[in-house]
């Protein structure tokens, strides 16, 4: 990406960001995840700067890319939710407890104490974006994503 392309993408970001977040939030129902989806959309735009900057309809391109990112996010949430719920031991009392009073170990067993489970839980159940988790952990967003993928793999093996 050259300087000129960077300027074009910056202008698009500053112009369209609040609106694209509205779009993503309408689908994801999670403002933080919506913001992250838009950020990721612009990251794709940077990697494909030649296409975006030469597009006759860059706004349309951004919306179409955002749609794909949103669907990726939805798939990630669904699958992580599935992994988490596969460890749950059914208990109507625990299930009815307020979210901040759930005893994770009682509900999910010892696996709830592993760092892999905690990361998966933060993403899937609590709906935290990668940026928030990465800042808390003092790591980059990319590293956080990798850890998430490794955690999913680890937990899927445990299910089997």
């Amino acid at each position, binding site marked *: 990406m050259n300087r000129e392309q960077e300027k074009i993408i910056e202008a698009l970001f500053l112009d369209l960001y609040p609106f694209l977040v509205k779009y993503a939030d309408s689908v994801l129902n999670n403002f933080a995840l919506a913001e992250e989806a838009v*950020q990721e959309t612009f990251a794709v735009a940077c990697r494909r700067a030649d296409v975006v900057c030469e597009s006759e309809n860059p706004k349309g391109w951004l919306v179409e890319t955002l749609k794909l990112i949103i669907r990726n996010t939805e798939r990630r949430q*669904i699958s992580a939710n599935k992994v988490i719920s596969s460890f749950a031991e059914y208990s109507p009392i625990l299930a009815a407890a307020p979210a901040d009073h759930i005893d994770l170990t009682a509900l999910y067993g010892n696996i709830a104490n592993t760092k892999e489970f905690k990361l998966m839980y933060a993403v899937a159940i609590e709906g935290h974006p990668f940026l928030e988790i990465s800042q808390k952990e003092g790591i980059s967003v990319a590293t956080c994503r990798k850890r998430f993928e490794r955690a999913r793999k680890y937990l899927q093996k445990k299910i089997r």
Partner: protein
Amino acid sequence: MSEKKGRPEYARYEAQSTEELQEILRKHAHNEIQIEMDTEELFYIMEVLSERNNQTPEQIAKTTQDAYAAFREHYMPKENSTAGKTTAKVFSARWMKVAVAAVVALVILCVTTASAQAFGVDIWGRFASWTKEIFQFQDASQHDQGKDPEKENNLELKSLQDALDQYNITQKLIPTYLPSGYTFADINVFDSPREVSVSAKFNRENDELIISIRQTIGKVPEQIEKSDKLLEVYTIGGVDYYIFSNTETLQAAWVVGEFECQIIGKISVEEMKEMINSI
């Protein structure tokens, strides 16, 4: 930006509730809207929703500026200059490890060679024939043949990479080498709430070559067909590539994280390995 100026045909959206407008956007995102929507119309709806937040233009501008700063810091792909600094650090650390390993290897080699020669074993001869075999595999004529078409093939393969880029899939999954004579035919993308699969087809006269990448989110990767004969498990970069053959085609299958990848086509084992090496 204001899409609302001079667009009275979309003014009807002002009268709709926030929930109704959100539902329109949700349906659009899931391709559930039958009628093609204009980009300007979509942005009009987003702007109506944005205005209902009761934020001042200054507040919106501040939030956006902050988001852009976060984007630059955390999401924007890094430029080469920054990457260079990191590489230099990594290189110096790696260089030290390599240097230490080389010294250790040299000491071991000297000791074992002396012992082997004492027992009448020509260790140097064996080493030479082993390296000769390796060099024969990638001889100069093959290398020259591969050079220019490889650049062309990169262009053919670009469309497949573009499809992955569009999904923000950054893992290295696609070969950059394509066997001689194959040209890009078409690309298929299947996108459902449970999986994404991208496959590209290449043709060479009557032959066909398919590269497919499937994101197996939350699923155990599918088992490879047992009907095909397993030729070998080719391991490179910590990844096992299962190479199978049947009467007509050769197939390589491997799994990287949540991605299940396959190459199927009428190619030789050497061409298949060349493709795998280029990933």
